[in-house]
């Protein structure tokens, strides 16, 4: 019940990973997802600066935690209830680069919302990724409800949901975790703590350093993990998902991540973050950290890294170009689906 901290995973990544039951292929697949998420994310900003898409909200710096934890779910069977920074999470759980770019361009075939929502509001019925809204923390309760249905229907499904540390101060967090703990629901809640809620630093958000400490009050384990340590994230995710799968109940994971970009394309973060802080935070970027680890452990070679980069660049280019060419939603469709009976 007490809050524990996993620090460095220690030792060469390869041997540690093997001891956890991860193969080299698993590690490379995780690296690929992380690198893909980053590449898509960077492309969004390029498109925004070029005036091609009006809005970007980004997951840069959060990808390690997302890839590490979500890799433990069974795609198409379990559930992911994401938030706006879950670019890497939804990619890990089955969405494609093209689907992400469809949301970015708000095109008619966009599986998230058919272009109705802002980019970053992911969702996919095909992949059991619940539709995202904007008011923060509401999704916690949906994840809890999904877990409740899984338990009542005895499906064996596990739910992972994520939110920022800022959002975790909302009332819905309290009500949701209390219920999940009470009914031992198979729900893994991830606080992606990047130290900021837009311009408000964590120290002005809550009187505690580790938000996972709150888990004890909800009768569930709370775990703090370094979001730059992808294997560490996989491990705590694995433990939490397996625990949930065994019917032993929920876990609260706090991943200490970093926000490498402004809050969104509408934000000027230099007004409230110093150049030194931004510089320092670069060291906590999970992408180079993971890459170094895999190179050091000879799970990846420099050539392998380059090959992956080439593949990803092609994938992102394809997704961008393809999505841009897709049709906009029609005016006729604007009134569809207010209710189930509003079908074309």
């Amino acid at each position, binding site marked *: 019940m007490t809050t524990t901290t996993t620090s460095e995973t220690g030792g060469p990544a390869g041997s540690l990973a093997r001891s956890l039951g991860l193969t080299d292929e698993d590690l490379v697949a995780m690296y690929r997802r992380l690198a893909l998420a980053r590449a898509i994310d960077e492309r969004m900003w390029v498109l925004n600066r070029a005036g091609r898409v009006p809005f970007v909200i980004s997951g840069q710096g959060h990808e390690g935690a997302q890839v590490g934890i979500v890799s433990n779910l069974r795609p198409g069977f379990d559930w992911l209830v994401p938030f706006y920074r879950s670019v890497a999470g939804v990619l890990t759980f089955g969405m494609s680069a093209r689907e992400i770019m469809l949301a970015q361009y708000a095109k008619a075939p966009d599986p998230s919302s058919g272009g109705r929502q802002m980019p970053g509001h992911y969702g996919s*019925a095909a992949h059991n990724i619940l539709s995202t809204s904007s008011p923060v923390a509401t999704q916690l309760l949906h994840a809890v409800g999904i877990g409740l249905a899984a338990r009542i229907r005895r499906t064996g499904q596990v739910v992972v949901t994520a939110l920022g540390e800022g959002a975790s101060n909302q009332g819905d967090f309290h009500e949701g975790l*209390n219920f999940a703990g009470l009914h031992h629901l198979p729900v893994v809640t991830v606080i992606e703590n990047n130290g900021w809620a837009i311009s408000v630093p964590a120290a002005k958000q809550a009187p505690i350093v580790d938000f996972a400490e709150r888990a004890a009050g909800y009768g569930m384990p709370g775990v703090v993990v370094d979001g730059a340590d992808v294997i560490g994230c996989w491990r705590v995710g694995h433990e939490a998902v397996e625990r949930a799968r065994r019917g032993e109940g929920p876990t609260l994971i706090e991943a200490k991540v970093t926000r490498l970009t402004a809050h969104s394309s509408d934000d000027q973060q230099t007004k409230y973050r110093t150049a030194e802080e931004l510089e320092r935070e670069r060291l906590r970027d999970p992408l180079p950290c993971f890459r170094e680890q895999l190179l050091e452990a000879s799970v990846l070679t420099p050539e392998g890294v380059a090959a992956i980069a080439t593949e990803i660049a092609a994938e992102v280019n394809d997704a961008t170009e393809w999505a841009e060419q897709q049709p906009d939603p029609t005016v006729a469709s604007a009134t569809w689906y207010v209710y189930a009976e509003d079908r074309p």
Partner: protein
Amino acid sequence: MATRTFIEAIREGLREEMRRDASTIVLGEDVGVKGGVFLATDGLFAEFGEERVIDTPLTESLIVGASIGAAVNGLRPIAEIQFADFILPAFNQIVSEAARMRYRSNNAFGCPITIRAPFGGGVHGALYHSQSMEAFFTHVPGLKVVVPSTPYDAKGLLRSAIRDEDPVLFFEHKKMYRSVRGDVPDGEYTVPLGQAAVTRAGSQVTVIAYGLMAHYALAAADRVDEDGISVEVIDIRTLRPLDRRTILDSVRKTGKCLVVYEDNKFGGYGAEIAAIVAEEAFDYLDGPVMRAAGPDVPGVPYNHVLEDWFMLDPERIAEAIRTLAAY
């Protein structure tokens, strides 16, 4: 056919739907062993067990939010909010989430939940156990709002609400729970959402109401009948989606329209009815579209003197009908 009180009809509707469909669950505060503070869920816990009849913690946002999630993952939750007044902590979940799930996901996800809540005054409930909340929800695209006034309708509409693919708010006037009785058929029947009922035919004035006021409107019509005024009464039953045709057909016939609602007048649900009639039946109107509604103070006061002052009654409605008829 059997005679049932309003709350018995609701209880039977719940029980029969739970028997019919194993994916239905009931959740809320005190809905289990106690059977709800008004006993609407009495007996369900014994019959269906604690997995399908869930006593939740005292957390309305969770009740609705978890219902949304459960609906997305294959259940059909029927949530009870103990008093409609206490639905407000769940307002964000209902308006931002339940109402928008289908539209925002372009039909990828739906939200088939029913939220039952006792509402209304005249029961010494004071400011926080008397409110009419429908105006907050009837404004919201994506929600359906039902206010039955007879045991027959309550059971039939509740069945339709539970089976509906979208979120339905089902408001039950608590003063009617035990005071209103009526015939309810033995077999399975439904009353479709979206249809108003002409509960009394007449020629001179159309009175439009719902909930307890649907009864008071009928009583008022009886009173003015003695004055020779022929009143047509419409019970809206489903406030959203609204059956405009039944309303407009009637007003085009009578030429006069009184909208009656218990809630505070300013910005209440009846304003929309009045606005629709004023816009779409203008050529047929022989008098202003009038409204008889609650006064604009924050809630029904407790002291009986003040409560009586607040609440509409048949005589006040009759007075408004007379004024309109004489126009």
